[in-house]
C-alpha cells in the first residue's frame, strides 16, 4: 500500500496532518465543542486515555486561548502510554481503573475539582465483536468512576461509546449522575462506525453518593430482561449529529488534489504509531525466525534481539475510528 493511500481514503486524516493535530480525533472534540460549547469557562480539564494527545492539544489550544492568564488553566492527561509533552498539559502515565490515578489528578488540581472530564479511551480491539463492545463499556464505567472522584457538581463529562446492543444500559447508568445525557456523533466520525460520544452535562450525583473505586456501584448485570426494555420504560437519550454541515464528509472519498491550484504533497503523520504488542512477532517474521514445520521456534532469551528501532506501520490499521 502506498504512503498516500490512507490520505486518499480519509480526508480528516489528511487534514489532521495539515493542521498539525496528532490524530484525526481532534476534529471530533472540536465538533463536539461547536455543538455543546464544552470549553466555556473551563479552567481545569482532565483528558482520560489521552495518547497520542490530539484531544489534549485541542484542550491546550482552546482553553489557553480563551483565558487571559494561561496560568489558571490546568490540564491533566492520563494514559497507559507515554506521550510527547504539550504546553500547559500535565501528564500522568497511569491506569484510569485505579483509585491512585484519581488521587493523583486531584493532587495536580491542588484539591480542587475539575470542570470538564473527557475520555476517548478505546481498549485493544480484538475483532471479537461482543468482547470489544463489553470492554469499551467497562472502560467507560471506569472513566465514569474516576470522574465521580474528580468532577465538580455541575461539571461536564464527554466519553466515547460504541452504539451496540447494550448502549441503553450505559445511558441509564450515566443518567444517574448527570441531568442531561446526549448521544452525539461528530461529522468527522464515520457514518459506518458504531462509535459515538456521550455528552453528559450538569454532574449531579445522587444524594449521599460516596465515590468508591473498588466496588463499582454501576456494574448492573447485563440481563436479557433489561435489554428487552422497550416502549415507555425505555431509556431515551436524544441523538445529535454535530459539526457544521459544510464541513468535510468523513465517508466521502475526495481526490488527492483538493484544490486545483495546490498540488498534493504527502505529509508524514504528526505522531508515529506507538509500539504494538506484536512487535516481537513481526521482528521474528521479518528475520524469518517464526517457527514453521521445519524450523524450531526462536528460543527464549529474546532480550538479545534488538527491537528498539523497528516501527511497525500496520499499527495504524488497528485504529478504531
Amino acid at each position: 500500500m502506498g504512503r498516500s493511500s490512507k490520505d486518499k481514503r480519509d480526508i480528516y486524516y489528511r487534514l489532521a496532518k495539515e493542521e498539525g493535530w496528532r490524530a484525526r480525533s481532534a476534529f471530533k472534540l472540536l465538533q463536539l465543542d461547536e455543538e455543546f460549547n464544552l470549553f466555556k469557562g473551563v479552567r481545569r480539564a482532565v483528558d482520560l486515555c489521552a495518547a497520542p494527545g490530539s484531544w489534549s492539544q485541542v484542550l491546550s489550544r482552546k482553553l489557553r486561548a480563551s483565558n487571559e492568564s494561561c496560568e489558571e488553566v490546568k490540564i491533566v492527561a492520563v494514559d497507559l502510554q507515554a506521550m510527547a509533552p504539550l504546553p500547559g498539559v500535565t501528564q500522568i502515565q497511569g491506569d484510569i481503573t485505579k483509585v491512585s490515578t484519581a488521587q493523583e489528578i486531584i493532587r495536580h488540581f491542588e484539591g480542587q475539582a475539575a470542570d470538564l472530564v473527557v475520555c476517548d479511551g478505546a481498549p485493544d480491539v480484538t475483532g471479537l465483536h461482543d468482547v470489544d463492545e463489553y470492554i469499551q463499556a467497562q472502560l467507560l464505567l471506569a472513566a465514569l468512576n474516576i470522574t465521580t472522584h474528580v468532577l465538580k457538581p455541575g461539571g461536564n463529562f464527554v466519553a466515547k461509546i460504541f452504539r451496540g446492543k447494550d448502549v441503553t444500559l450505559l445511558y441509564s447508568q450515566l443518567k444517574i449522575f448527570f441531568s442531561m445525557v446526549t448521544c452525539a456523533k461528530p461529522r468527522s466520525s464515520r457514518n459506518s462506525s458504531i462509535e459515538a460520544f456521550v455528552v453528559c452535562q450538569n454532574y449531579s450525583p445522587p444524594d449521599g453518593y460516596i465515590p468508591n473505586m473498588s466496588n463499582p456501584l454501576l456494574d448492573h448485570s447485563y440481563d436479557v430482561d433489561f435489554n428487552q426494555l422497550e416502549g415507555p420504560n425505555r431509556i431515551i437519550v436524544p441523538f445529535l449529529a454535530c459539526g457544521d454541515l459544510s464541513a468535510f464528509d468523513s465517508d466521502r472519498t475526495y481526490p488527492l488534489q483538493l484544490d486545483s491550484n495546490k498540488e498534493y504533497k504527502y505529509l508524514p503523520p504528526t505522531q508515529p504509531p506507538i509500539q504494538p504488542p506484536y512487535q516481537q512477532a513481526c521482528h521474528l517474521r521479518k528475520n524469518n525466525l517464526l517457527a514453521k514445520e521445519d524450523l524450531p521456534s526462536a528460543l527464549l532469551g529474546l532480550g538479545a534481539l534488538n527491537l528498539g528501532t523497528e516501527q511497525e506501520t500496520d499499527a495504524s490499521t488497528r485504529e478504531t475510528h
Partner: protein
Amino acid sequence: MCLLYSALLIGPNWETSVLVGGTVFNQLVLWRPGGSKGDSQSQVERRLLGHSGVIFSLCYLQSARWLASASDDRSVRVWNVGVLGADGGCGVESPTCLRVFYGHQARVFCVRLSPGCVFSAGEDGACLLWEWEGNGRVGQTLKGHRSGGIRSLAVSRGGGWVATGGADGGIRAWRVLEGTRLVDQSKEADCQIDLGFSGRGCPKVVRSLGGRDAVLVCTDQGEVLLHQDESWQTVWNGGPEFQSYCVMDVAPVQFQDASLWVCAVGNLNSGVQVFALHHPNSGVLLQAGQGKVHALQWVQGDRLCLLASGAEGLVYRWTLEVIEDKTGLGLRLEKQKSFLLPTCAKRWLTAAVRLPRGNGSLWVCGDRRGSLLLYREGELCEESEVDRENREGGSKEEQGVWEDENRWPESTVNDIAPISPVNTLFGVHGKQGVTSVCEHQGLFYSTGRDGCVRVLTVDRNTLKVRRVHRASKGMEWLEKVMFLGSEISDMYEVIERRKQDGEEEERSITDSGLEIEGVGQKKRDTFNEEAELKKTIGINLEDSGSERFAEARFVMVGFHSIQFVLWDPLTRDKLFSVTCGGGHRSWAYIFPSHTQALPSSHSLREGMLIFIQKGAVMSSRSLTSKATHVRGHTLKDGLHGRGLSCICHLGSVSRGGLSSEEWEVLVTGGEDTTVSVLAIEPGQGTVKVLAVLADHISNVRTLAAVQREPRQKGGSNSRTNTSSLSTFLFSAGGRAELQCYQLLIGWNEQVNWPVCQVTQVAGHRLDEQWERRRNRHKTVKMDPETRYMSMAVVHESIEEILVTLACSDGAVRLFTVRVESRKVELVWENFYHQRCVLSVASYSFEDPQGKQHVLLFSGATDGAVALWDLTTVLDSKSMDSWHGPSAPCFSLPVHQSGVNALVISNEVGPMDKDIITVASGGDDGQLSLMKIRMQLRQEVVFPELLSHWTVPLAHSAPLTALGALDCATLVSTSPDQRVCVWRVCHDGLQNKATVFSHTADAAGLWVWHKKGSGLQSRDYVVVCGQGLQVLELTNGKDPERNEKE
C-alpha cells in the same frame, strides 16, 4: 479492578479453587477467590509476566502442571506452575516460563494442552500443533477455514481429535493419529531428494507413471529412462536423429485386462517415435510433416490419440490401437486428418481434450499463442466417401510397419485439407499461452500463463467463457487445475473409522465439551446426513450420463515465483509448495498413495513433486508428506470469514412432487470480498453454500437481482415438477467495482440438493475506465478509492439492465449492462449530493396513458433524500444522446446524519396508484416515512409531499437496514441487535414487535412473503452482519427466531 480478557477456574470446589486471569495489562494473575472468609477481598498470589499483549486464552494441564497462555502478541507461553487448586493452592512459589512459541502470523486466540503437545489457533486461520521436544517445533499445521481465522479450539482427551471453529461459522474436525508427533523429522526437513539421475546428457521432460515411484524421463540426448525402485534404467535410445532436442509424452492404454504405457518422442526432423514402455524396440516411427516437432500430446478418448504439432500450424493426429500378433503386442497407428492452428508466431498446440459427440468428437484445444480452439470431426465434417476410402486404404498399409525399420510411407490422408477450428477464442489466455484444457462433469476448464482458469461451455459451435477465476497475486503461471472430491467422502471415512476405533474415541470427542455450542450433537447429525448423501452420490457417480451443471471444486496448480504451488481458491490456502526454481521446467505431481478418484484438499498437501532442476531429477518430500495421518473433515461449511454487508433473497426451489421440502435461496456479500449463494431450509435450519463468487478485489457492499423466466429444457421441469430460478445478480462495493452474473438454480435429483450454475456476464471497474481516459501527463489518479455503497435496478429489458449506484465520491451513477455483448457502460453521473451517497432506491410506474415512468431516490451522509426523474432514459434511442437530469426534482433533509436505507412501496388500491411511500432509516437511529403524490403535468412528474412521519429513536444505534413486507409493514434492524416490525397506520408508524437478534453488527436485511395454501403462507426476515439469522413473522407479526447461522 482491572479488565480481564480471559479466565480459568481450577479446583474441585469453590473454597479451594484457583482463578487464573489474563489481564489487559499482559499479565497472568492467580488468586483464590473463595479462599478468604468474610468481606475482605482475596489478594493476587502470583503474577506471571512476559507477554507483551493482552491474554486471550488459558489452559491448564493437571498431569504436567503446565499453564498455557495465548496472546495478542502472537505468542503462546507455557508456564511451570505446579499443582493448582485443592491442596496445591496457587502452585509453586515462583513459576517459570518453560516455552515461548512464536509461529502465528496474527493474534493467537486459543490454546489447549495435551500431554507432550501444545495446540494453538488464531486469527491467521492456522491451528498449530507444537512439539514439546526440541524447544518447540511446529509438528503440524491445520488449515481449512475461510478468512477471519479460528475462534475456538477443542482437543479430545488423548489429543487424537482436534476441532476448530472459524470466524466463518464453519466447524472442522481433524484426526491426528498417535505417533505422528513422535517421529523425528529432522532428517526430512523440507528435504528435496536428488533421485541420482545417471543417464547421459540433461533430463528435459519428466512424467509420472502412476505409482509413487515410477518416473519417466527424456533427455536431450534422445534417451528415455525409467526410474523405479531407486534405480535408473534406459528404456529407449533414439540415436543421433533424436539428439539435442526433446519432446515427449506418455499415456496409459488399456489392452485386454492390462494397462500399459505408450510413449511418444519427437525430434527436430518431424520424426515421432511411438513405443510401448515394456516393449521399446518394436516402436513405430511416424512423420509429422516437415521440420521440428514442437509439441506432443496423448489425448484419451475411445481410442488414445496422439497429436504432434509440426510446421506451419499443422497438428498431425494418429489414433492408437494395441494389437496382438505372433511376436507379441504391436501398435497400430491410424492417421487422422490434421488440425490447422490459427496463424501466429508460436504456432503449436499446448493442450487438448476430446469429447465424443454423436458419431464424431469435439475437441477443445489450446495453443502457445493463448488461443482456445474448438474442432469438430466425424459426422459434422462432411467427409466425402472418397476420403474415407482413401484413409481406409492407407490404414491397411500401416499395419505391420512397426516391425520394419522403414520410414512411414507418405499416407494418402496427407492430401486431405486439414480441419480448421469451428470457433476460436484468439489469445484469451494471453501471449504466454494456454497450459491445459480438461473436461469435468460437462464443463471445460482451461488454464494459462495469464494466471487464469477459464470455465467454458460449448454451445453448438461456439466456445463460451462462463467464468474466469484468477489465481492469487503473483501466481501468474498456472499449469492446470485438479478437481477436489467433496468432503463427503472424507466424512464417509470418519464413519468407517469411528466404527473401528470403538466407543472410546467417540466419547472423548463429544465429552471434551467443544467450546462450540452443541457441536457434539451436530456432529452426530452430520455423520448421518453425510452418510445418506454418500449413498445418493454413489448412485450419481455411476450415472455418468447425467449432466450436472454446477461447477466443481478445484485447486489451481502453478508457479508462484520460484515455487510450485497448489492453491485452493476458495479457502485461499496454499496447500502445497515446493521451491523448485519456477516455471519453464517439467514436473510431475504424485498423489499420496491413499488418494481416491478425486482427492480432498487435505490429502493434496501430502503429495510429492518430481521436477528437473539444474540437470538433476529432484523429488520433493514436502514435510507434510509424513502427515499422512492427519485428515480434515468439514462438519459445517463456513460462510463469510468476516462481516456480511448485504443480503438478498432470490426465491425458493423445491424438490417438487409430494415433498414439502423447500429451500430458500439467498445471496450474501461480505467484507471478505466474496459473494455467496446459499440455500436454506428453514424447517430444518440447514444451510448449504451453493456457490462462492470471488471476483471482487474489495468488500462487497450491495447486491441487486433481476429475475428471469427460466428456460424450460425439453419440458423436463414440468414432468418432475421441480422448480428453478434464473436470475441476473449484480454485486458492487469497494474500489468502484461492479460484477454481473447469471445464476441458474435448480434441483439436482441425484444429490438431492439445490445446485447453482454461475455464468459471469460482466465485470466493471470505474478506475479502469478512468485509467483508459486519463491524460498521460497527469500523474495523480482521479480517485481510485471510490466505494459503491448501494445499488438499485432502475429498468430491465431483454437486452439490457439499467442499474444505479450510490458512490462514496458524492456521485449517483447510472450504468447499462448489455446482456448479449457483456458490456457495462456509464451513462450518467451527478454530483448533486457533494457527499458520500449511502443509499439508492428506484420506483417505476405507469401513468393513465400507459407511459412508463422511472423514479430514483438517493440519500447521503448529510441526511438529505433526493428524488430524480429518469423517465427520459427510456425514450432515448441511444444512450450517447441522453444526458440525464442535472438536478433532482426535490431534496429534503430527513435525517440528522447518514441515510442508510431507503425503501419504496406504493399504496394498495387503484385509486392511490400515484401515491408512493418512501421509508428511510438513518445513522441517527430514526425511522422516517413520507407519502408522496406523483402528479403528472404534460408527462412531467411533480411530486407533492402529503405527509411525513418519524420515529426519532426507532433504534438506539444506527438504523442500518430496512425492508418492506408490504406497503403497510416495515421491518428494521440495527447494531443494537433488535429487529423491529412497524405498522404504517393512517396517523403514523406503530411499533408492532421487537425482538433481540443474535446477529451482531447487523448490516443487511431482507423480508419476503411466502405464498402457500391457507395457513401455510409465511413471512420471513433475514438479518445479516456477523453471521446471519432467519426469523419468521408469526400471525401476530411477532418475529420468532427461527434459525441462526
